[in-house]
């Protein structure tokens, strides 16, 4: 299998007025093409920092990162711009990268049609439901044609039921578009339901505690149906214990 993302001994220290904050220590892992990998860990351990470093928004202190193919990045909030129509919102990334061409516009229209947003293209974000907004945000990212998608708690702003449906929805879209995903979450079930592998991080400074391979031996596995498998709760228990959460 082809590696599309490779991290070797990545470390990060933030410099702040009141001292150094060590956020990541010696993080190494690979992600293969088409794979869904989740990163899970206690809040404040450095998960967002890790994604920001991979995306190049934040400099790393040590280590090496190799990326093959374009990156897309999805944040917790959909961050749709309320003063733009849905169409102008999904074109935003292309506009920023100055890649607004006839072909790219056609591709966006195709995505809008495929994922049921075409008839909403002239509406404004506040006229859409939470799930629809998240889809629009996803299309905005897909428009720049990424090979690898980084998702930082991308669903945690949604209420529980919507979240399960949106997770399922986006899972299918990403599989359909052949995208590799690196998903940050603090929700164990979400991680199990979506991923091929789960990387468990320790408290800050984050190191890798364990990497779990998730397999369900079922056809057409998706985030909804795998929740019914007896293996699901086994994975849940194992990871729960590893996260070692105290109140």
């Amino acid at each position, binding site marked *: 299998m082809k590696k599309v993302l490779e991290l070797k001994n990545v470390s990060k220290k933030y410099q702040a007025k009141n001292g150094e904050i060590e956020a990541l220590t010696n993080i190494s892992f690979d992600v293969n093409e088409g794979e869904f990998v989740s990163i899970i860990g206690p809040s404040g351990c450095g998960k967002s920092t890790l994604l920001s470093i991979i*995306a190049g928004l934040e400099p790393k202190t040590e280590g090496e990162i190799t990326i093959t193919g374009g990156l897309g990045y999805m944040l917790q909030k959909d961050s749709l711009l309320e003063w733009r129509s849905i169409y102008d919102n999904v074109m935003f990334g292309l506009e*920023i990268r100055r890649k607004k061409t006839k072909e790219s516009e056609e591709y966006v229209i195709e995505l809008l049609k495929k994922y049921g947003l075409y008839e909403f293209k002239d509406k404004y974000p506040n006229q859409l439901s939470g799930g629809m907004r998240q889809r629009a945000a996803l299309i905005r990212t897909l428009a*720049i044609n990424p090979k690898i998608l980084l998702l930082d708690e991308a669903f945690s702003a949604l209420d529980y039921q919507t979240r399960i449906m949106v997770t399922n929805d986006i899972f299918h879209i990403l599989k359909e578009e052949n995208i590799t995903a690196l998903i940050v979450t603090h929700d164990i079930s979400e991680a199990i339901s979506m991923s091929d592998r789960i990387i468990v991080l320790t408290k800050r400074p984050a190191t890798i505690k364990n990497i779990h391979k998730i397999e369900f031996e079922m056809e057409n596995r998706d985030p909804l149906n795998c929740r019914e498998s007896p293996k699901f709760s086994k994975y849940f228990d194992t990871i729960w214990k590893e996260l070692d959460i105290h109140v």
Partner: protein
Amino acid sequence: MYEKNISDDRKKYLRKIRKNKIAIILTRLSILIIFIIGWEILANKGIIDDFITSKPSRILNTFLNLSSNGLLMHLGVTLTETLIGFVSGVVLGVFIAILLWWSKFLAKVSEPFLVVLNSLPKVALGPVIIIWVGAGMGAIITMGLAISLIVTILEILNGFLNTDKELIKMAQTFNASRFQILTKIVIPANISTFFNSLKVNIGLSLVGVITGEFLVSKAGLRIFNCIWWSGIPIRSCYDRGYYSSHCSSCNI
């Protein structure tokens, strides 16, 4: 909104809202009318001194003779001065706010100066401004500018700095440049801040201009004193030196 057969309850509700709206407007109008009529009566009966308070009928008269007493011209002068002060205040204010948003260093450096300038009573600057710019329209416009500029800068900069960080981060995930973040996120996100500051500013510019006129003017609404005080035609105000004697006595 578009339903044709609305329920009786809904009709009642809508009627109530309309009635309430009309009542508010009527009450406002009556207060105004009672005030004006009361003023006129009290002045006519000599209960209040109409040399100090003037009276509605006299003010109305002056307005009716607009062309002969040149009020229109004075109104025009004040309006022009205000507009020039206002527009230059807004343009300059927005420009400086953008500069300060762009450079955190500049913002930090200028912070104490802005605070001091903002709390300074600008009207007190009047005489100094006259010395710098000369006693003329320039001084009046500068006065209007001085009053509105700092407030504009502070208000717009505050809006800029409070732009939703998530939106900026989203733009950064597409590797947006600082200029793109400014033009595509920060400015459009602050359109309402901008209009709010326009509203406040037009008032402030007017205050500045009228203050300026008190100090230096040969034309403009400062003349409203004449209408107010005695209804003496404005030209004769000048002729009799009434104008200047009042100017020195009013001491603003």
